[in-house]
């Protein structure tokens, strides 16, 4: 591998074609690329890929064989393919599903890209901001380095209150003033507004529509430590809500052992007892269905939302009400958002350098990105005079890869719904996000795997009920705490903190 690499590098240097690789010397190769979250029918794929491959043949003499991974089957199918050493060149990867970027980098599944990026993908290297590359650096099999290409998408996190402005106005509040002042979960005003909605709409109406884990992070201003237990976060790091990059002397702590958490759980339980939170929100299995349904019917006053740029307009249209997003925290960037969607080159790839050339083109060439993401003009969309596009809904339904998962989506043409100039404001918003004090830190939990496995089960037993207000924290929290300690939370936290200290020192 290394030998091949240096040989190729040497060849390139000699030929003096650093960056300009589009010469006739390229052999034709086929690349298998595994995408994520796609809804693509075989017919549509064939049609689009014929054009894509014709285009690619001219550019880099590559043929793409896509594997259209879907949302649910992806975790198991990909992990099996990876462990089984399937011949796939490029995998989608990220840090929020079983297809964990950092873990697979550590275990040797991804090719380290640092040197190759400069040689084969210089435009790509330049197109992605330094801060995002920072997040891609992980402690992989061949040492610290970049093992995947991050997608330039919605790369920041901002927790907002999702406010039903229409209802708030009905209750006699000045919506603009309330939104301007911001909302405080612990304030009396917050409770009064909920009570007013409850009184006005009756006993079956539950004004507080929550996603418990999001609510907890939002209210306590804690971030997700990348590498914490996937879907069962037990670590907290408190940041400054107004200036997320400010160092306020935080350390990694046991999420459930702090005063902040106790206060949050007590408040949530209080709201639950007052009938502000639906019992359906308090059952893991029904919570998601209920939330989607209730948002659609606008039967809520306050909700929680991890902000996506421009979503208040979409929501207002979809729900037929005036949806306001009231920030609880400023937008911040960390590895959780930075690693939200990536493409990694598999160690089984026979042509890693060509895979990178493809990724380079995909992320910098609007024609290719548009074809891959939106399909073909006249088939899945039409272009309007102002440069926006309008989807042809029936055809688009047969060819919808996950837009944000493909790569640099900021080079796509805006849709008619987004409007001219959308991507500029999009970039402006996300580029303004501050980075948390721990920057690109990634926790490697493999040394405390036994603890992690036990903690995940203790978490499943207590955390959701506490965070949704279903049980009384005065009774349950001490019991939960004792079990966490038995499962090794202290070892888990100190391992994370030690790694963070080392990271910040080095």
């Amino acid at each position, binding site marked *: 591998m290394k030998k091949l690499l240096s040989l190729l590098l040497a060849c390139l240097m000699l030929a003096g074609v650093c960056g300009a690789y589009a010469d006739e010397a390229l052999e034709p190769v086929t690349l298998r690329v595994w995408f994520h979250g796609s809804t693509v029918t075989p017919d549509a794929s064939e049609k689009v890929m014929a054009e894509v491959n014709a285009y690619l043949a001219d550019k880099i003499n590559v043929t793409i064989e896509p594997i259209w991974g879907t949302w649910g089957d992806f975790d198991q199918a990909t992990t099996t393919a990876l462990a*089984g050493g399937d011949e796939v060149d490029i995998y989608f990867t990220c840090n929020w599903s079983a297809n964990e970027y950092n873990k697979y980098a550590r275990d040797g599944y991804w090719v380290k890209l640092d040197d190759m990026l400069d040689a084969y993908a210089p435009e790509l290297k330049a197109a992605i901001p330094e801060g995002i590359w920072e997040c891609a650096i992980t402690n992989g099999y061949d040492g610290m380095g970049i093992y995947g290409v991050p997608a330039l998408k919605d790369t920041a996190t901002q927790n907002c209150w999702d406010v039903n402005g229409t209802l708030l106005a009905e209750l006699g509040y000045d919506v603009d003033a309330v939104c301007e002042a911001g909302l405080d979960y612990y304030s009396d005003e917050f409770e009064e507004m909920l009570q007013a909605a409850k009184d006005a709409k009756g006993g079956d109406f539950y004004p507080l529509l929550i996603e418990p884990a999001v609510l907890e992070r939002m209210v306590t201003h804690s971030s997700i430590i990348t590498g914490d237990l996937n879907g069962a976060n037990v670590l907290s790091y408190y940041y400054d809500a107004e200036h997320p990059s400010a160092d306020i002397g935080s350390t990694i702590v046991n999420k459930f052992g702090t005063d902040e958490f106790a206060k949050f759980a007590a408040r949530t339980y209080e709201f639950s007892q007052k009938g502000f939170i639906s019992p359906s929100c308090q059952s893991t299995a029904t919570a998601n269905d209920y939330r989607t349904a209730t948002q659609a019917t606008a039967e809520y006053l306050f909700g929680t939302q991890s902000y996506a740029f421009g979503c208040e307009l979409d*929501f207002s249209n979809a729900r037929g009400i005036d949806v306001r997003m009231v920030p609880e925290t400023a937008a911040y960037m960390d590895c959780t958002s930075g690693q939200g969607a990536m493409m990694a080159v598999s160690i089984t790839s026979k042509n890693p350098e060509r895979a990178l050339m493809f990724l380079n083109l995909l992320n910098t060439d609007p024609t290719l990105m548009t074809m891959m993401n939106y399909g073909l003009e006249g088939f899945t969309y039409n272009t309007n005079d102002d440069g926006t596009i309008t989807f042809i809904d029936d055809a688009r339904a047969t060819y919808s890869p996950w837009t944000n998962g493909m790569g640099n989506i900021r080079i796509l043409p805006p849709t008619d719904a987004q409007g001219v100039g959308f991507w500029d404001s999009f970039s402006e918003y996300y580029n303004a996000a501050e980075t948390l004090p721990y920057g690109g830190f990634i926790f490697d939990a493999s040394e405390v795997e036994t603890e992690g496995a036990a903690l995940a089960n203790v978490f499943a037993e207590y955390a959701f009920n506490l965070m949704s207000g279903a049980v009384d924290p005065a009774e349950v929290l001490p019991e939960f705490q004792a079990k966490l300690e038995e499962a090794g939370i202290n070892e888990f936290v100190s391992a994370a903190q030690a790694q963070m200290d080392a990271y910040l020192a080095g």
Partner: protein
Amino acid sequence: MTKKKNLRLNSVSVGAEAVIHVILAAFSLCCIIPFIFVLIISFSSEDSIRAIGYSFTPLAWSTEAFSYAFDKLPQIWRSYFNSIFITVIGTVVSTLMCALYSYVLYRPDFRFRKFFNFFSFFTMIFGGGLVPTYIVCTQLLGLRENYAALIVPLLVNPFNIIIMRAFFKSSVPLELIEAATIDGSGEYNTLFRIVAPIAKPGVATVALLNALAFWNEWYLSLLYIKRNKILQPLQALLMELQNNVQYLNQMAGQMGASAINEAAKMPSQSLRMVLVVLIVVPIACAYPFFQRYIVAGLAVGSVKG
């Protein structure tokens, strides 16, 4: 002896039979009600479900979820074909292999009977796990992106072998085999002409179990059919849609505004039940075919053979 006469001669009293009817009817009702419930929900409007939850008496009826499913699944008829094809071929071949192997185990005069018995039984307890099996299938046997990948990995089930052997043992007297051998009947002839017809209920039961296994299979498609998705069986196709819907519901926040909107538009709750209806109805229709043989000898006094 006529059937009628025999029936009254040797059967439980009318009172006892009435009690039996009550018990069986009550249990049967218990079993079918959930399916009726599923049917009702699949035809309920999503608004009704959002307003009052799942209910036997929805506020409004709708076929919205069915049209959504058919819209989202242009491949559905091809997948129906795939499922039927796989189920038919798979059932025939697997039942045949099972009958052959079980027959050998049933023969007490077979020298390696004990060895072969343990050879299959042991795999019921121990297995190599998912990844090693996946590697053998894809790299050694070439089972990927083809129909064989959806059939071969399910062909043998040690449980069925043991069941079939038990049926042979309890219904076919050994003397019959000896007599057949003396008459010059070859082993294959004895199995297919003498043993199998007598053990028909057993063979039909195993065939039914096999058919269900093939019909319900989706995991193999998930593992082995990635690029050639035109081969996806129905169950896998439905599973995929279901998973997409579930993920959109669950993670819409992570996927941007367009995903949240998509999630809001889906009839996700009635859709779940529509998918059940689509997969259950065909196999439920095929059920009586197997049942004919299983229940053939049912009720005391029916004439055998």
